[in-house]
């Protein structure tokens, strides 16, 4: 089988999912979100499938995806889908199928050792049809999402989905552009200028060399950037525009984000807490989706805790249980959100997060000075002198300085605190591992890509938001 039916199947289930649960009044954005949402759904379904112990066979999985598509379509029909949205979804699907056909003609994917390992593990999942001891050992160190995504490639005649990063990366272009277009909806810009602004910022983001490179690279980094952006930006627009229909897709993206790498559940929790600390979205809706997110991630981390070795350098049973315990704590914080003490505490959460990261960095530098300085120096060299980046970080720094002269948009903390805290967190990760090194393949260098889309998004909405509107918020 070619890769096109696999990619199209993922798109269709995503389209039905977004139509059933996603934004009704934003049909173009809903269509654009179909592929990332579909990929997240298929991988989460496969994960639960494997954890429960159902044989992982193509025919069974394909039937489950078809049934899910049907169920979501029925749900969407009951909810009422506008004729315009249907037409747009159909046109988008035809365009997507044609694009996939073109993109699968040649293999332009970039593969390194890590990429081969993800593909190899995916192949083992598909062939064995269950979690074997070999996979159990490997998945203590490697995020499960890419493994499951590439397991689908074993069902194609090319043995691996070389088009997957390219299709995900290219489908992110309209997602970013349309999300920014909606994000700028609060500004005083006319529709025409909003369009120009969204196109210009999207073009600049997509031509950042590192972003272009990761669009071809089989690894977790582009997927983390895509899902972190979808989760954070959609939750921001949901609050800013009082549109709760964006919440489900944001949480689906957050779940996909948490399963990408061993440390990403903490990243997801960080951005979630910062975003929800000052939310005005319906508490019941948020709590229900936080519960779903926590349940899926906790099930997987408890599964890891059962087979992980205590001597593992990455996820040990204790660390895995600490991860899911932290997520359950987030859920309890959400449930208790109406309590006065929690509401009071929420005001201090951004400051507490910033203080915690700064304190942890101070301790790390004080106790492992040489180690941390080596990491910092290597990271700085990578970001400032690698050809993959050019002068990107200097230009982003200049834009940040310019953006400081205008007031922040409403609900800014997921960006204004979340991005620096995440960058600090990348540095902190080296304290429990080997120091970072100079080179394109270095972890910190690759992880810097994760926040680039949300930096562009935040700077755009900050600069374009009118002060008068900011005060009203």
């Amino acid at each position, binding site marked *: 089988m070619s890769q096109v039916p696999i990619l199209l199947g993922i798109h269709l289930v995503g389209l039905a999912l977004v139509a059933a649960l996603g934004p009704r009044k934003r049909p173009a954005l809903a269509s654009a979100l179909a592929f990332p949402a579909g990929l997240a759904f298929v991988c989460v379904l496969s994960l639960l499938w494997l954890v429960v112990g159902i044989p992982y066979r193509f025919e069974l999985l394909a039937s489950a995806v078809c049934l899910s598509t049907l169920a979501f379509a029925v749900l969407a029909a009951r909810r009422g889908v506008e004729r315009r949205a249907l037409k747009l979804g159909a046109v988008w699907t035809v365009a997507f199928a044609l694009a996939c056909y073109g993109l699968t003609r040649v293999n*332009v994917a970039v593969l390194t050792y890590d990429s081969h390992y993800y593909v190899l593990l995916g192949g083992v999942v598909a062939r064995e049809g269950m979690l074997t001891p070999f996979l159990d050992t490997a998945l203590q160190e490697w995020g499960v999402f890419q493994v499951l995504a590439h397991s689908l490639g074993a069902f194609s005649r090319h043995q691996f989905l070389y088009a997957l990063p390219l299709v995900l990366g290219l489908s992110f272009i309209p997602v970013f552009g349309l999300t920014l277009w909606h994000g700028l909806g609060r500004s005083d810009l006319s529709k025409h200028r909003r369009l120009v602004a969204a196109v210009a910022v999207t073009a600049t983001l997509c031509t950042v060399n590192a972003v272009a490179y990761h669009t071809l690279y089989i690894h977790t980094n582009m997927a983390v950037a895509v899902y972190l952006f979808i989760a954070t930006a959609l939750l921001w627009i949901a609050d800013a525009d009082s549109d709760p229909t964006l919440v489900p897709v944001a949480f689906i993206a957050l779940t996909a984000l948490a399963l990408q790498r061993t440390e990403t559940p903490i990243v997801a929790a960080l951005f979630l807490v910062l975003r929800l600390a000052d939310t005005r979205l319906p508490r019941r809706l948020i709590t229900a989706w936080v519960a779903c997110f926590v349940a899926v991630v906790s099930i997987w981390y408890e599964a890891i805790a059962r087979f992980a070795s205590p001597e593992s350098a990455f996820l040990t049973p204790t660390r895995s249980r600490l991860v899911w315990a932290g997520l359950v704590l987030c859920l309890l914080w959400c449930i208790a959100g109406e309590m006065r003490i929690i509401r009071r505490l929420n005001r201090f959460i951004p400051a507490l997060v910033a203080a915690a990261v700064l304190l942890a960095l101070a301790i790390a530098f004080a106790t492992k000075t040489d180690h941390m300085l080596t990491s910092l120096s290597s990271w700085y060299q990578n970001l400032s002198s690698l050809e993959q980046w*050019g002068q990107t970080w200097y230009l982003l720094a200049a834009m940040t300085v310019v953006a400081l002269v205008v007031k922040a948009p409403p609900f800014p903390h997921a960006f204004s605190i979340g991005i620096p805290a995440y960058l600090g967190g990348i540095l902190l990760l080296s304290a429990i591992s080997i120091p970072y090194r100079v080179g394109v393949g270095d972890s910190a260098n690759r992880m810097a890509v994760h926040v680039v889309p949300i930096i562009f998004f935040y700077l755009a909405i900050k600069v374009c938001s009118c002060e008068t509107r900011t005060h009203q918020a």
Partner: protein
Amino acid sequence: MKSFFVSVFRGGSGRQRFAMAASCLLLAVFLVHNLVWLDHNYRRLPCWQSLCVSPRSLEEVAAQNTSKVVRGRFATYYLLRRLAAGKEMTVPIWLEKHSDHLEAVTRIYLEYSSERMVVPDSAAPGLRESSTETGTWLRRGGSRPLVQTLYVSIDANASSYVLAESSATYGDLFLITAARYRSLTEGAP
């Protein structure tokens, strides 16, 4: 020109107009910078005159990778899976640390031999010539990693194979049928 800027950046406070104007300028510089660097980086690639197209077969992709580890391990796993999946293979004990990958990826049933399995020097040239496929194996031994050449001779009717070495230390590797290995070694001194 002035009226154009006034129309583009109208509305909001003076600070905001400044921020928007400066951001627009920086964004334009950013976009040009990105395009220049994309062009520069792409021209530096060995494949820039055509699209950087790779093979579509996973085994070929692994065999052409720039990483020695990928060429010397992953490509060999895929080669062995294609040629010998489902067969039995007796391998030297030093390969035991790779047993997880060898069994999970190649689907070969492995047996380990603590005795060194060596083909006679006189037979090695003939085995090299009669091999149907070659691969590489990256062996971490001695002071630095060594790339050994693997010569594969597959007989469609045979189900048992032996992975033997040439007598030289860290020499070539030969994947031959167990029967052939016996016939080669029985007469040897």
